[in-house]
């Protein structure tokens, strides 16, 4: 297997592995924020349904929570572009 890989054009191999690495970086970075945004929004909806008069305040805080959580996924997105072969 390794001999076959070594026989390939090494530039192509690096290119392919870079693409795989980019996919893994962004995919991995999206797992945590994906789950957490679900938790944040779900709890915000529960809070709004229980107390509709506090909806404005809850919405503001929800967007703040989303912004802080989402930043991690976006770091992964940027990092995926920074990786080069």
């Amino acid at each position, binding site marked *: 297997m390794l001999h076959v890989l070594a026989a390939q054009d090494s530039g192509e191999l690096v290119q392919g592995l870079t693409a795989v690495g980019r996919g893994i970086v962004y995919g991995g970075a999206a797992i945590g924020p994906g789950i957490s945004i679900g938790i944040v929004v779900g709890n915000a909806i529960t809070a709004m349904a229980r107390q509709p008069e506090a909806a404005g305040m809850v919405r503001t805080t929800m*967007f*703040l929570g989303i912004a802080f959580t989402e930043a991690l996924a*976006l770091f992964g997105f940027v990092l995926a572009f920074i990786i080069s072969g």
Partner: protein
Amino acid sequence: MILGLDFPPISHAIEWRDLFGTHGAFAINKVVLLMWLSVLVVAVFFFIASRRQQLVPTGVQNVAESAVDFVREGIIMQTIGKEGLFYTPFLLTVFSFVFVCNIWEIIPGAQMPVNARMALPMLMALLVWVIFNFVGVKNQGIRYLKNVCFPPGVPWPLYILVAPIEFVSTFLVRPLSLSVRLFANMLAGHLLLISFAVLSTALWNSTKVGAVLPGALLIGLTGFEILVSALQAYIFTILTAVYIGGAMHPEH
């Protein structure tokens, strides 16, 4: 090449030719022109809106007043409180400028969000960093640093762990995450629209029928990007307000 489709490399999607002026870092390209246009749009919009003020607003004045009202009631009163109203002009400018810079993403002919290049988000994040630290030092003096690094209500051995984390997260990660959030959201939206446009064009050229689904998705995503543009402007402004508010009152 994916599935026989030729997607442009990312440098073709966001890097533009130097149009005129000097070369290198000070060259003028499409993104810079759009940024100047955004400044002009925001300035002219608020100038026209405030030129003939009426008690019962109509037309442009109505839009401008609802924008001011949104920043006052929706952002400042929710995060800082009454004493934050001093920052209304600054936050309103930030909100409208970021929004206009973002909305170029879906304007036909422009179709390039200015914030999809790192320069402008980084500059604005550094500006926000300077302002909230200035507000903190002005309101709390030298105790600002102590209040940031040593939040009260923590058992003292934990300060060994908490103080460096708080320092790094306040002074280093805040500007980074503020700029990267805006930049990456706009870049992702731009690439998403490009991908679907390329897909629709390729399928239209080969099969005609196959272009219906990606074409419909492209229209839907354009609408979604309007939402994202407004939301990112809102989030950038509200985080600025939160940072200024946090610098005004120490945590207790």
